[in-house]
């Protein structure tokens, strides 16, 4: 059992190191069709690692990135001194103000659920190394996520939720930064100090890898009583922060609350206010019943009313509902355009006061209308998909 990596399920493969001189043993359901490609990937990976041991690979339909990751994980579990494989990554930095209506979670140890996660049109895909990964799989999961990051083109943003820094978050950062995610989510953030420590780690690793310093965003997840009470200092702790996220499951446990719109009102409002004060976005917690579309829609409406910009999602099926709720509706957009047009007319007429339908338009209302139009333009420009 020692050194065996992978899960016996579709899209994955099992890799076991065998004694030196054991060669490469590939087992696949369709040797003629799949065998040659599997061997090429395995051999390239072994060469990149520079370790001469044998490997037995049992394939269940894994893509190249999975095979490479599983081999790397199996061999590094045997030989802790082996250095990580570095990979070429072609990824543009993202705009800090881009729409983040959805952050779609995927478990970082499950190729079956990771492969194809980029096709669903999520504004942010969030590859998870924390709660969905058991302690024994932390190493193989972060290696898998690294290879996925390097192999995959994302239309939106791709983030990694690392483990808290005093668990194994710093190892996570060292590994996954090779794959150049747009940002890193820090779970259970409780103080400005947590953020500053993460920012230092990121800077250090960015420098080592030759990446522009400060190019990796941070999204703290506030999901404890302490975190909520320190929302303001957290939000302002570092310019890498582009959004605050809320985690209701841990928060309710921490404070002893039952989950309801009412019981979470304080925490949600605290996050929205702190985010707004720091000029960053706020992203609401996940809704965990994937069968309940109506419940999801209700919670999205409530979150948007409170001032959230987006919401977490545990299944791609939830994305259309979430995107619809956090996008300006056609009616809202039309009203925004009317407000802006009225302001333009007033300006042309040299009048200081702007009126529409017999009502005065205040400055904040005008500013909000302009913001909404800019946001809608961003969405149309491909900052987010309709699907």
């Amino acid at each position, binding site marked *: 059992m020692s050194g065996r990596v992978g899960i016996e399920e579709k899209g994955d493969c099992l890799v076991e190191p065998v004694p030196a001189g054991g060669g490469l043993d590939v087992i696949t359901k369709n040797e003629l*069709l799949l065998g040659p*490609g599997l061997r090429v*990937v395995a051999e390239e990976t072994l060469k990149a690692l520079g370790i001469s041991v044998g490997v037995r690979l049992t394939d269940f*339909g894994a893509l190249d990135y999975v095979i490479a990751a599983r081999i790397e994980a199996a061999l590094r579990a045997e030989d802790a001194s082996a250095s990580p494989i570095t990979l070429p990554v072609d990824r543009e930095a993202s705009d800090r103000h881009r729409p983040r209506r959805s952050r779609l979670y995927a478990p970082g140890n499950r190729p079956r659920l990771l492969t194809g996660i980029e096709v669903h049109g999520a504004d942010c895909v969030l590859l998870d190394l924390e709660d969905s990964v058991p302690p024994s799989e932390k190493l193989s999961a972060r290696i898998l996520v690294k290879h996925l990051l390097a192999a995959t083109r994302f239309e939106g943003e791709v983030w990694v939720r690392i483990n808290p820094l005093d668990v194994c978050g710093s190892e996570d950062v060292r590994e996954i930064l090779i794959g150049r995610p747009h940002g890193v989510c820090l779970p259970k953030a409780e103080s400005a100090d947590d953020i500053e420590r993460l920012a230092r780690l990121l800077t250090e690793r960015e420098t080592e890898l030759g990446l522009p310093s400060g190019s990796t965003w941070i999204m703290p997840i506030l999901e404890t009583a302490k975190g909520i009470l320190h929302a303001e200092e957290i939000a302002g702790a570092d310019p890498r922060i582009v959004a605050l996220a809320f985690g209701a499951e841990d928060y309710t446990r921490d404070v002893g609350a039952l989950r309801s719109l009412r019981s979470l009102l304080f925490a949600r409002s605290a996050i929205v206010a702190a985010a707004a004060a720091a000029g960053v976005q706020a992203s609401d917690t996940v809704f965990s019943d994937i069968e309940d579309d109506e419940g999801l829609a209700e919670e999205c409406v409530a979150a948007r009313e409170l001032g959230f910009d987006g919401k977490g999602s545990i299944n791609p099926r939830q994305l*259309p509902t979430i995107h619809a709720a956090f996008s300006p509706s056609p009616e809202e957009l039309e009203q925004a355009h009317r407000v802006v047009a009225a302001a333009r007319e007033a300006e042309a007429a040299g009048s200081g006061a702007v009126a529409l339908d017999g009502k005065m338009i205040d400055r904040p209302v005008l500013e909000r209308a302009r913001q909404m139009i800019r946001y809608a333009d961003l969405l149309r420009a491909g900052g987010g998909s309709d699907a």
Partner: protein
Amino acid sequence: MRNAAGREIPERIGSRDVRPFAGAFATTNEGGKAQRPQKVAPRQEEKVLPSIEAAIEASGLTDGGTISFHHCFRDGDRVINQVLDACARRGLKDLRMFATALFPTHKPVIDHVKNGVVSRIEGSMNGPVGAFVSQGGKLAEPAVLRSHGGRWRAIEAGDVEIDLAIIAAPQADPYGNATGTRGKTPCGPIMFSAVDAQYAKRTVVVTNDLQPYPVYPMEIQQGWTDWVVEMDEIGDPNNIVSGTLQLTRSPTNLRIARLTADAVVASPYFKEGFSFQGGAGGISLAATKYLGDEMERAGIVGSFGMGGGTKMLVGLLHKGLIRAILDGQAFDLDAVASIREDEAHVTIDPGLYANYDSRGCATYMLDTAFLGATEVDLDFNVNVNTHSDGRLLHGIGGHQDVAAGAAMTMITIPALRGRMPMIMDRVTTVTTPGEVIDVVVTERGIAVNPKRDDLKERFLDAGLPVRTLEEIKTEVERLVRPLGKPVFGDEVVAVIEWRDGTVIDVVRTVEGWA
């Protein structure tokens, strides 16, 4: 010679002079109809025979004869194996098996090929029999695959003469009327056999539920039936739901289904009176569900949905979202029950459904259809018959008939299955030519046939992810090293007929790998 689908095919295959595929609607078949030997029955003739052997004997079936069956019990069929065993016991040799389709349960057919009882197979082969035939050297003549409509046409036109038609009927009367929707083990309509019953030299109804005259609805009529045989077991209706008919839970497949429904909504066809057919796969079922939701939201009532009937389609009928279901076969037991109970769930035979040689078939009235596939190529050609390793593993079903008939034909297919890219430079086998395919929907985007720029515009306006097949192909090929490629030999193991009786492609033996 090279046919109009760009495939290299022999001019002669076995004893057949090949008419090459010339285009989806290019062939004019002007021949008349085949004749059945006339028989004038006396009043109240006793048609019940004691056993299947007695019926085979009475039919005068001889070595080299053709024996036909339907597939309406799908993988639950118990008749074909029993009848072939009886043929073997009678010492018959070199029979031509002419079932509409064979399933994994018909694996014993392989033994009957080996022992010489069967030497030719025409019809769909799903699973082991197809894999066996693919090896080559097994049959006296290459197998022939036809669509539902194509099979009906071939019998009517006299391309295939049936000596003995065996029709499994969940309920029948002693004078030869039979139905598939009633009885102890209803499997859904059995009108796939209506053409066999009308053109075979001899027609035998076998039933496990013989009831007093009259049994109805008379899907198989007394005027066509020579004899009736009672059997203990004809099939297990629980197996008419095959593995491909479960609603999918895979996020990738649901994504494809969602895009499919969104594309239909964005198309010019989505309006009052709209009609559609979903195939049998998990993606199609989910797309049907999503489409129903959209129709409800938009307040649109469709004119008809076309089966294989499914629970999903029946649900739309019961909600009043479609006015009728036109149905040739049942894909689950909800559909069977609905055929019995709902007047608007109309049973149609494959001639009405899909026949090329007709004054108009039902698929020609379809606005849109979404169908599955094994592979698609850059010319929009579709393969549903062979796997990428060259083995023959599936029948055509109604694929050609529906694709040619619908105003907007959509192929739903994952761009990647495991390690295998499904968009190829050239499909392994052309089942359905690109000229009748309008849209290909994958999880990575929607590709529109260049001749349908009108659709492309509408999809783009609706914010749908429109991409070219080349783009999608390149994207998935970055994720996997190229596959091994089968090198094909010269021996033709199966002929793929286009629905008009021409040859659109052939399946050859695999000789090696590159």
